[in-house]
């Protein structure tokens, strides 16, 4: 009764979505002020899984910070490994053997594939379709097995090292990856048939959650969110690192700016990732997987360094201030979804609750990465 009286008086009511809610995929809380089923204001509240990784970076040695990278974005942890490896390699001028770079690219792209597959399933789950999640998990499981056979872990990878990778890949991994890609290729058209072309899904995604390119720019949104708004920007192309310049792949860009565009960008990215992996497998040379001259004790010269990689969710960049000791003076982790979610408040205004949750799903949130 109080509820009804309240809503009659104010004509709006406040709804707490989360911290425990099926659609937030983690401990995100969104404070929503609603007018009926329409959102007047939706304010994300973070910090439920804040662990102060940046302070840990100041207290641990460079090498000891490795496991933290696997625990930021638990879905594309290898890309984060890449970011950190690249940062210190830039700071110390370490040359990485080519084979190691190819292994890095292959594992990162496999990781991106599994991240997108999980996102695909979870996103359709947000929209109420349960079955694609299980199909996506089936494929994802294959990737996890492959990655497990080379990195030893299934989720929180700690595989890269400064100047290379932890260990070499074996032939089983290479043949297994090729076989997997052969298996996944026909699955994606099946997903399109089952999900993308479904009229119910189209109704829910087309023209929902409009984010203009300028809004992306103002909020610093990156990754598939930015590419879904018609901006052709991919760190792998625009700020090439590793061996990406030697590989031939496209950056999918959609100009519709809606949830469907973001969805399609990710689906197309999966195809591109498969292309990259195949090429990298073909081109991978023999040789060492770790720089021989990599120093044991790391003391990067004074100054600040910046390195950005394209993680599954957008630009992950690290900035560190080194004071030439074995710990960093300041470690800054720029997580893509933090910026991507910050536009939620503006973009979700006036949306229907169910559309807003679909929109949130299309941003592909990973909470531990946001809270750091």
């Amino acid at each position: 009764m109080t509820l009804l009286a309240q809503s009659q008086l104010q004509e709006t009511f406040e709804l707490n979505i989360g911290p425990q809610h099926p659609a937030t995929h983690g401990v995100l809380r969104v404070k929503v002020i609603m007018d009926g089923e329409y959102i007047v204001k939706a304010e994300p509240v973070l910090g439920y899984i804040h662990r102060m990784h940046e302070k840990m970076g100041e207290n641990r040695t460079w090498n000891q910070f490795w496991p933290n990278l696997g625990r930021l974005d638990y879905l594309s942890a290898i890309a984060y490994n890449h970011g950190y490896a690249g940062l210190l390699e830039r700071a110390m001028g370490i040359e990485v053997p080519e084979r190691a770079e190819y292994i890095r690219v292959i594992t990162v792209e496999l990781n991106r594939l599994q991240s997108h597959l999980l996102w695909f399933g979870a996103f359709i789950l947000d929209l109420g379709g349960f079955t694609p999640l299980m199909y996506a998990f089936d494929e994802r499981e294959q990737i996890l097995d492959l990655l497990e056979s080379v990195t030893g872990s299934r989720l929180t990878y700690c595989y890269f090292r400064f100047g290379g990778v932890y260990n070499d890949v074996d032939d089983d991994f290479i043949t297994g990856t090729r076989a997997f890609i052969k298996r996944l290729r026909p699955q994606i058209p099946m997903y399109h048939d089952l999900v993308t072309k479904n009229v119910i899904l189209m109704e829910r995604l087309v023209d929902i959650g409009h984010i203009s390119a300028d809004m992306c720019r103002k909020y610093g949104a990156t990754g598939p969110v930015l590419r879904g708004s018609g901006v052709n920007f991919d760190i792998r192309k625009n700020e090439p690192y590793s061996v990406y310049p030697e590989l031939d792949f496209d950056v999918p860009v959609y100009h519709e700016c809606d949830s469907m565009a973001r969805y399609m960008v990710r689906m197309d990215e999966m195809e591109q990732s498969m292309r990259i992996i195949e090429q990298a497998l073909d081109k991978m040379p023999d040789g060492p997987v770790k720089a021989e001259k990599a120093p044991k004790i790391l003391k990067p010269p004074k100054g600040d360094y910046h390195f950005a990689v394209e993680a599954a969710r957008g630009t992950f960049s690290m900035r560190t201030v080194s004071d030439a000791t074995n710990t960093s003076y300041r470690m800054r982790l720029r997580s893509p979804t933090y910026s991507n979610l910050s536009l939620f408040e503006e973009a979700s205004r006036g949306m229907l609750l169910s559309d807003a949750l679909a929109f949130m799903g299309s941003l592909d949130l990973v909470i531990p990465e946001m809270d750091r």
Partner: protein
Amino acid sequence: MSGYFSYLLNGIKSLAIGLKITNKEFLTRPITLQYPHESVKMAPRYRGHIELLMDSETGTHTCISCGMCQKGCPSNCITVKSKKVPGVKGKVLTAYILDFTTCSLCGQCVENCKPAAIDFSNEYNLASTRKEDFVFDLLQKLHPEGVPEPKVDPALLKKEQEKIEAAAKAAAEKKEAAAKAATEKEGEGGEKAEGKS
């Protein structure tokens, strides 16, 4: 108006295709692995908790108790305890305690280990309701029936004993010279002798 009907027809068609796909999946075999009844073979590189490796030559581990694993560990989950046993080269490991509750399986310890005495195990069936069950003594795990006594090298033992005697002798001589200084030097001398041996 034609848009209205074509939209409807396309919609119905898309729904029918969806039904066809799920029907196909319904008729194919499930892929579930019945975990407790059957299990997958773990990848050789699977990172379980670390373990001391058995060296087939000596019948025990090859840990030299240098403590590099302990130093490199980001989460301080390793404690290496060692002691000096007369007649044995280097320090002898008495306990290698791993607090697996805080381990992040990063592999720094395995990488830092010069004699390659530790590696990841393939154990994944770890479950307990008590936190204490995840604090292992890896040495005990390696030798469940009891840690074998380190092999004493008689020649080394003799040498050491001679050294200690010599040191004692020297100390005794010095003691005569100056009582206070002698006591301090005795301790140092003893340690040095250990370190050299």
